[in-house]
């Protein structure tokens, strides 16, 4: 076991030891390193002013991703390379094309959000071999960056035109150096970073992870820290023991076999989105709307489930898809239907020392029968008021099976069992759907909060069933303002 962490910051090796392991990357940059180009606008992953690019080795190649530095704990960067806005400067002080484009289009007014925008554009530029972005992709890449001055127009233009500018001269040489430096950081030891009363473990194998969790069953498991990060930055919780899953080999595994898609609990949304969109187009689009690019680059599908939130977007979709949850304690595995995992508000069927290992999703014969609807005040980067997911199969005009699940309608993600029962065996018609509307009150009595009233939740949940029916019988594009059909699913990685 190593007693310190190691990562690269702007090409230089940094060691992390004898410090609070919940120190955020942002505080380290701004307070310790005085790299003040990275800004703090919210410290909760909403505004993107702190966006940096984290690069890591994936299957032998370097992958660049934009993340929010404000909710990354420093030891999570083990073996990775962090690039801040200060390093975009090319040889001879030239600007990177994303920066030059922002200057040329007057993409800065006040300029406070600009370094964050530059880093989001930089990550996209690197991922796309120096191409500019089309409008839809720019919307996606920039959904996690707030600007209050410009109305985004000039920034979108910069995103579209940055590919037309000369590529930076340092490109290849620097990439090769970064690859070598990252290779040099590879190791399979468990890393421990501790202060007087906090400890952070970053195991590299599933076995060690299981052992550590058995030893410290009260530990907080952290994957992307898109939620746990806020426990620290907003609620000032003092986390004593943390086990980080991001280095566990095989934990982010995504595979299809025997008509089943298996998603390792450590797979980030960005890791999974292409495969999800391929097999379940609407789930791909739903995941594209979770958080922002920065959040999807860090957050995991396993974390979204294990967290147990009643408004997580993956659980209702995966419940409607009849997913199985694979839980693990030590060497022992246990499989349960996902819907049984959610017992009550804040209570899941998870024993001490047990963790979510994977999710198994049966593939569909007709993926278009599966639809997801995420209702929010804002289309991108917003928490669902209601999330409704539907999978109804019809044989000879009769409903043969129905799996309908909602988020935001109860204390847990929950199936609409009474509604399903009112559909099964009936003719698949508008009349049947309308007759089933009255059953919603047997399944749900949603709460009123700042995101939506009880009435709105109930009314829109009912309307979503109607929408699902209409969309199954009419062309998609005429019934959707936005979403699949007008925007390509595929998120951060679609080129």
């Amino acid at each position, binding site marked *: 076991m190593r007693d310190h962490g190691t990562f690269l910051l702007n090409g230089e090796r940094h060691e992390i030891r004898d410090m609070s392991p919940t120190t955020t990357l942002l505080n380290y940059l701004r307070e310790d390193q005085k790299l003040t180009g990275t*800004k703090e606008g919210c410290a909760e992953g909403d505004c993107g002013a702190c966006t940096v690019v984290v690069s890591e080795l994936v299957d032998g190649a370097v992958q660049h991703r934009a993340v929010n530095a404000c909710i990354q704990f420093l030891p999570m960067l083990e073996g990775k390379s962090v690039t801040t806005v200060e390093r975009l400067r090319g040889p001879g002080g030239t600007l990177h094309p994303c920066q030059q484009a922002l200057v040329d289009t007057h993409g800065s007014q006040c300029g406070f959000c*600009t370094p964050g925008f530059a880093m989001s554009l930089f990550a996209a530029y690197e991922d796309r071999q120096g191409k500019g972005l089309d409008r839809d992709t720019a919307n996606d890449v920039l959904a996690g960056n707030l600007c209050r001055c410009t109305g985004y127009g000039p920034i979108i233009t910069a995103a579209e035109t940055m590919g037309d500018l000369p590529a930076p001269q340092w490109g290849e040489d620097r990439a090769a150096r970064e690859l070598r430096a990252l290779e040099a950081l590879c190791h399979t030891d468990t890393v421990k970073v501790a202060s007087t009363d906090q400890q952070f473990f970053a195991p590299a194998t599933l076995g060690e992870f299981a052992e550590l969790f058995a030893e410290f069953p009260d530990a907080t498991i952290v994957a992307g820290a898109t939620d746990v990060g806020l426990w620290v930055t907003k609620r000032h919780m003092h986390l004593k023991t943390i086990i980080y899953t991001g280095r566990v080999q095989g934990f982010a595994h995504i595979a299809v076999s025997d008509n089943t898609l298996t998603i390792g609990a450590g797979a980030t949304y960005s890791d999974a989105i292409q495969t999800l969109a391929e097999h379940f187009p609407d789930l791909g689009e739903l995941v594209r709307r979770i958080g922002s690019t920065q959040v999807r680059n860090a957050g995991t599908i396993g974390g979204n489930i294990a967290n147990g939130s009643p408004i997580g977007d993956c659980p209702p979709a995966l419940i409607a898809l009849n997913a199985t949850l694979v839980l693990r304690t030590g060497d022992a595995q246990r499989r349960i239907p996902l819907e049984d995992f959610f017992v009550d508000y804040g209570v899941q069927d998870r024993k001490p020392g047990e963790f979510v290992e994977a999710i198994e999703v049966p593939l569909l014969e007709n993926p278009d029968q599966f639809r997801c609807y995420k209702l929010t005040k804002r289309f991108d980067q917003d928490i669902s008021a209601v999330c409704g997911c539907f999978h109804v199969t019809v044989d000879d005009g009769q409903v043969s099976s129905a799996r309908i699940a909602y988020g935001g309608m109860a204390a847990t993600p929950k199936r609409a069992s009474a509604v399903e029962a009112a559909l099964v065996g009936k003719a698949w018609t508008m009349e049947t759907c309308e007759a089933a509307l009255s059953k919603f009150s047997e399944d749900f009595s949603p709460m009123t909060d700042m995101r939506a009233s009880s*009435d709105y939740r109930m009314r829109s949940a009912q309307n979503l069933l109607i929408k699902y029916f209409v969309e199954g019988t009419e062309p998609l594009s005429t019934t959707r303002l936005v979403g699949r059909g007008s925007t390509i699913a595929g998120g951060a990685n679609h080129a």
Partner: protein
Amino acid sequence: MTHSSDFNAEKASNLKVIGTRPARPDGVDKVTGRARFGADMNLPGQLVGRILRSPHPHAIIKSIDTSAAEALDGVKAVVTRDDFAENPDNHAVLCNVMAREKALYEGHTVAAVAASTATIARKALKLINVDYEPLPHVTDVDAAMQPDAPVLHDTIFTSGVDPVPTIPSNIVARCEFGHGDVEAGFAKADIIVERELKTAATHQGYIEPHACVASVSTDGMSELWCCTQGHFDDRKICAALLGIDVSRLRVTASEIGGGFGGKTTVFIEPVALALSRKAGRPVKIVMSREEVFKASGPTASTSMRVKIGVTNDGRMTACDGEFRLQGGAFEGSPFDSAAMTAFACYDLENVKSVAFDVVVNRPKGAAYRAPGAPMSVYGVESVVDEVALKIGMDPIEFRLKNAVRDGSQSSYGPKFGPNGLVETLEAAKAHPQYKTPLGPNQGRGIASGFWFNYGGETCSNLNINADGTVTLAVGTPDIGGSRASMCMMAAEELGIPYDSVRATVVDTGALGFNEGSYGSRVTYASGLAIINAAQQAITEMCKRASMMWDIPADAVTWEDGYAKPSGANAGEFEPMSLAEIAAIAANTGGPIAGHREHNADSAGISFGTHIVDTEVDPETGRVDVLRYTVIQDAGKAIHPDYVEGQFQGGAVQGIGWALNEEYIYGDDGKLQNAGFLDYRVPVASDLPMIDTVIVEVPNPGHPYGVRGVGETGIVPPLAAVANSVSAAAGVRLSELPMSPPRVLKAMDDAKQAAE
């Protein structure tokens, strides 16, 4: 005013630099992260300041015990109300900066600590024991006006009513504007529409939280670094609250990460100074996003009644409005400007506009881009839309028929001079968007709006450097690209390239008093000072050339960057460039500079008209903005890209206000959405590319015709979006924001009413 400030048509039609679009001088620093904002400053020995805030919306502070906090290792100072002397001239600001007898809103500052680390500071806050006696609270403006409402201040007796009440209430003041006889006017109307409408409180939403570093020496010499729209204003108020001489406090404005009016006052700055004075070390305070929402200065929420009468041929016969604005826990909501701007677009015989300033248990409001106008204009333009619809008249034709023109009597008093309202309406009518066909569930909205624009106390210096470059010292923080526009105006006057001029926003020690960057005044007022300063420098350079040539000073003229002999007695000399004159300045009398101090008026009113197309999802109530065009009179655009940037920024803030943004309070009087997670400002995908049309009707009070442009852009969008959504939904929406639940409910209710 000097003659040079009046519109010069010949000059305005021969501009070389003005109207071009050079890169901003601060652009590279902003994309590289080098620009230093409020929180980017650190001083040696600096402590971390943290603020203890009231958890109660309304409570008597019976006692504060700081002894345990003071005893904690690493704590260097603790301040409370006892560290600030009573200050009758600045009572409201003082009480807002540090609560006195009562905490008046959730988040109200009660105490503050300075410690060696953030962790110790947070621990220390927990050790401060405050004994509160909670009181009943009120956060809604209408509820606060009721006779049985909990009263915040027993010193408020409504002003502007006769007789003055004998019992205190939450109604600070009533104001009234207008002329004619509205009842007689309504009697002449064929159709009258009257509506009650509401808008929610919103926040300016600047991405940079308030931040400052204060350092007070043992002899009282003090420095303050902060993100602000007005560092001279900050100096004035901080010096007053701390009881120090203005001359002993030097304030430096950092780069500012957005303000929009919200950084025109102080919150943490006097607290940081008080902590530094007590600790004897520099203190830095940075607000969290939650503190920004709970304890900076959001805008007013409003309720209003608007009544408009028209004849069948589209002439407005009478307009009557009542506007009720809460400005948080202290007096000072923009109720008066709400009343003044409400009907300002219309040439009316009979108009009456009444407004009330109301206090509630919310943070003290600050300015937000055209304060008061977006709300009252939302009410008026919604009803205008409805009456035009009722008489079957095109909404632009209706507005053209009633629009103010040069010489019209304004609804709030003065006569208007030349202005561009009609031009913006004509441009809207001719714009391709106005003719684009609409699909099902889509609607188009039009609205016009007005803002005064301000001038104010201003002071700028211009220095000719020995190498032929020029440095400008400006006292108004750059919130919208003003350094670029100052350089452009100096280059224009001096006849030298834009790249030879650099502008710096200098600290309070370097210039006389400047009002802050607000009121859309900077390009106009600071710019005019720069133009005048350049003219002064030109006079001096001509004099220096005349000395070299040994001819009378008035025999030298300035042309395209050169001093030239001119006239019968001038003689034959090679023209001297600015650089040549500058190079020998030491031998001709020393440095060459120009400066100008003035209290600028004639800022130039400005009107705008917006067109917006939206689509509504009938099943979920979601609104999608399809197309948006801003048309506004800029008088003369100095840097057209920045003018368009102001138009677009204002429109997008207005779109957010119209559709999603709101302060949501629980029954407990606490703010429920104090973060960007649930206070939803628009992101890129919420918006189409905002199209812009710059109309230029010259301001007669400026040599190039410049009018302020920063604020008018946020005035029409609330109404324009509401009119568009109402058309798309088939039902009039009368409460903002038009969030999906509210739109769906309105459509449902309309359906039920029809059945």
